[in-house]
């Protein structure tokens, strides 16, 4: 007797929409942080995070969860938006905000931190494109290495290797 093929229930559009909306609270700040780490401008980063969700909604009918969780799919959209943004801007701009420096009780300490931050950001810029992608998705997007791999369409092992190489390079640059 032949077995009937398993019934595949297609996820309804409204279910996917609900899941996307439910991801907003946890993912919006992380997408914004990821974009900020890549482009260095807070306002643009917030715009990209908002745009990510609108693009996701527009493309929701085409989204199918085949090994790529919705969260990683969102970051792939964000990643593409960041790449577009960088291509348009063709430069790295960082919005300097001196409010903290001016209002702090210990401006010298804040200034030291600022220098350290500036050095770290400059070092991040020395990494290869892939290394930067991996570190920003891992550290600022809060994705696991598996999710990062799915987002960047690479293997888990390759991502872990790039992660180590990126940190070693950063360390040597910051010495």
């Amino acid at each position, binding site marked *: 007797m032949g077995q009937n093929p398993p019934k595949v229930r297609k996820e309804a559009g409204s279910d996917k*929409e609900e899941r996307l*909306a439910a991801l*907003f*609270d946890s993912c*919006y*700040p992380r997408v*914004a*942080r990821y974009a*900020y*780490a890549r482009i260095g401008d*807070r306002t643009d*980063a*917030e715009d990209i*995070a*908002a745009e990510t*969700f*609108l693009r996701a*909604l*527009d493309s929701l009918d085409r989204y199918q969860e085949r090994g790529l969780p919705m969260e990683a799919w969102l970051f792939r959209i964000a990643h593409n938006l960041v790449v577009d943004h960088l291509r348009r801007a063709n430069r790295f701009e960082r919005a300097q905000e001196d409010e903290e420096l001016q209002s702090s009780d210990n401006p010298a300490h804040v200034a030291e931190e600022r220098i*350290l*931050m500036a050095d*770290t*950001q400059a070092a*991040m810029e020395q990494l290869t494109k892939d290394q930067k992608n991996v*570190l920003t998705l*891992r*550290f*600022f997007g*809060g994705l*696991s*290495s598996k999710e990062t791999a799915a987002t960047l369409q690479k293997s888990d*092992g390759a991502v*872990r*290797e790039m*992660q*180590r190489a990126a*940190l*070693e390079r*950063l*360390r040597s640059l*910051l010495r």
Partner: protein
Amino acid sequence: MNQYNMKDFDRALDDCLDRIRRGEGIEQCLANYPWHASRLEPLLRTAQQAQLAYVFEPSPSVTQDARAKLNAARAERAAAARSRPRSRVFGGFSWLRPLPAAAIASAVVIMLTILLLVRPTVTAPPVTEQPGENDYPAPGEEVAVPVTPDDFEPAFVMPSAHPDGNFAFYLSDEPNAINDFESLTVTVSSIMLKTRGEEPWVKLLPMQKQADLVQLQGNRSLELWRGDVPEGTYTMVFLHIEDVEGILVATGESIDLKLPSNRLHLNMEFELQADELTEFVFDITVRRIGPPENPITYLLLPQASESGIGRDIERVDLHGRPDEPGSQKPEDPDRERSPKRPDLEPTPGQPDMPVIPNTGHSQSGPHWRPTPDQH
């Protein structure tokens, strides 16, 4: 380090990075990998330093705007889906198509018969709906969605309008597709404020029921109600709209606007003090939706980013002319807030206003109820 050891190290590093992100300390992680510790530690500290270089939290107002945009896009999507013509007679029940009409009719008759026979044996427990439970949407939503039957209302108190009240409610318009309209008149039947907790809702009957949104663009705002509202924390504002009439600039024709469930709502927490005037702006926007090849459809939506307390208000009257605060009332607008009348103050244990239970009927009546000393 050979290739195997390198892969093992990469896994250990990956695991430590995940654990540190979840709140564990570097030392705890190193304790699990003593054979890699000397090489892991500097990389983990570098990772920490890199993360500190980009500390950034998006601002709450921008986050709220982004959420409102997503909700607006969802509402547009839902409206577009509803207005899309069904290409198949049976819609999702395509498996019915091959059946002849007689067979379908027979099946329906059989099902109805079974239903009638079974019905008397089926009993359901009585359902008691509590205000604020099943009546309105869950927190997190900013956009109007149909959530309850239109005739359901929770228990509420209904304060009288009062020119020296502690609360003023304004309507305004965020320009989007408003320039398509010569006039866009909304008729507001009531305003509902949801209190935090178990307190009854507050229902306001607007003194000014109609507003032309074309006259209310930007900061221009029309006062709909002013009076005394119980102090406390409010978490949602509902605008019940009984009619929307738009006249298009291009053709001069009158069109219907879509308004899901005839109400708009905002999730917005704000505090009201008894002795301090709070001005709340409810901003509405009109958006053009659907593909350009179809007949144009417009949708009314609340604009969370432009609504709330502490907004810049340019007061205008119904015709868009500059207006003084409270000038719609038969009172001197420049006078100071008068103290509350002792004879109207509640005695201990007595509520400020009678609580009107959920009757299922909309309240109607005079919009302006002068107090005895205003005659």
